[in-house]
């Protein structure tokens, strides 16, 4: 493993995605700000926009940084350089994850801070479950992109993730214990939410390991 090569490839991709990264960061911050306005309609619209930005950022960054290397034929150029498949895989998965986590973490942190500032601490209990769901959905798209290298299949998984998100939100807010915490001004952690977060973290780790395993076992790079 060549750490210097991994660092150079990582920085190269970070630079190449700078415009999208800035756009999604700015859009995420704007949506978060809207969600924090003390008006029920604006808060709702802001929250929907936060979710939209998170989903759009995921599919766009996977497309730009991972899938486009095949369609734009730039991978042949990169793989002709003195880097191994392992170097390439580590840098590629790391940079895709990092660029997604920047707007994701900013929106997550922004909403948590705003919820505390507005004195609605109870809402904080559901935010990790929702944001980790979005992260898991992104990871499943990433694994699909790694395995299939197909834009179509990756979009299918994204659509599936969106459908599941709606069902997930219905189930989450349909839980009496969760609903009670959300309405209160005191932060407590319902066991239902903690179970969900545990499963989400497990899915994240399994998806990450699967992505690395598939990427590093490819025999033909181009």
């Amino acid at each position, binding site marked *: 493993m060549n750490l210097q090569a991994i660092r150079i490839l990582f920085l190269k991709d970070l630079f190449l995605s700078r415009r999208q990264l800035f756009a999604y960061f700015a859009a995420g911050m704007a949506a978060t700000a809207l969600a924090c306005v003390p008006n029920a309609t604006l808060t709702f619209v802001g929250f929907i926009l936060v979710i939209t930005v998170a989903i759009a950022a995921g599919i766009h960054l996977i497309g730009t940084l991972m899938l486009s290397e095949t369609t734009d034929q730039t991978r*042949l150029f990169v*793989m002709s350089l003195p880097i191994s498949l392992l170097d390439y895989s580590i840098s590629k998965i790391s940079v895709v994850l990092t660029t997604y986590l920047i707007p994701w973490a900013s929106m997550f942190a922004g909403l948590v801070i705003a919820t505390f500032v507005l004195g609605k601490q109870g809402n904080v209990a559901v935010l990790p479950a929702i944001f980790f769901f979005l992260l898991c959905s992104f990871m499943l798209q990433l694994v699909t992109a790694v395995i299939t290298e197909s834009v179509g299949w990756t979009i299918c998984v994204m659509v599936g993730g969106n459908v599941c998100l709606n069902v997930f939100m219905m189930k989450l807010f349909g839980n009496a214990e969760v609903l009670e915490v959300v309405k209160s001004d005191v932060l407590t952690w319902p066991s239902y939410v903690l179970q969900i977060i545990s499963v989400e973290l497990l899915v994240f780790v399994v998806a990450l390991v699967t992505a690395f395993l598939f990427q590093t076992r490819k025999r033909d790079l181009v």
Partner: protein
Amino acid sequence: MTMELDSSTGTELAASMVDVSKSYKHFKLRNIHFSVERGTVAGLIGPNGAGKSTTMRILMGLVQPDSGVVSALGKPISSSEAAAKQDIGYFSDDMRLYKPESLGWHMQFVRSLYPAWDDVYATQLLDRFGLISQQIVKGLSHGQRVKAMLLLILARRPKLLILDEPTNGLDPVAKHEILTELMRVVEDDSRTILYSSHNTQDVEQISDSITFIDRGQVIASSNRDEFLDKWKRIKLHAPEGWKTPEVEGLRLETCHRNLHVLSFSQFSDQVPALLQGPGLVIEAVESMTLEEIFVSSVMRGREGSQS
């Protein structure tokens, strides 16, 4: 660096493939066996879809063979091994640079991975190729794009250049500029070029040795002068009903009335004597171009595989 030696001649090899095979759904590369001597230009000629690109990608470690041994610059080649690629420059017609970025950005990027990057030489190449480092890749013409990629490869001073159809689709001037630069490269005896094309004229111009490949198999391999010396075309007037004698290396290319055009792959002064007989008149013994030799080799190979 420890170079591999050719077991029969004892010469240093820059690259070699031994019994390399690779199967795809609709294509098979079968028992590819060839080597490139250090300090030479080796041409790989084949029709479209013959397996040239796959062969070169295997040699570069971009595609893993199903079987066989591949080495370059004395090191085994595989996708998990990056060290050998430090001294290899690979170009493919299918290769693309990042469209939104400039050539200068690409130069900085490649330089960060190659300690041997030569800034002075890179500047000279910019000038010789008529490129501007601030140019955005998206706005480059095909010829400029090929030159830009060759600049990125040549300025790292690789010991082995693997060039897959570098002159494909270029205008004559751009082609001349590139071939001239490649000739400059091999003025340094330690540097080697493996060059593929379906254009025999380009290969003939710069190659020391030539390998023909068709339908995933090597069909002939020799040095260029040997090819040109040993292959001859014989124009022969023969009586009606005359049949081409079954002599190794002899093939009937065309026949119009009593004029038979034969090609011979192992010509020697004794050959005309083999074509003596009542009513047989040899009209001419002519040299063949590399293109004619290539086409005849391919047709012989295909006839051989059908029979």
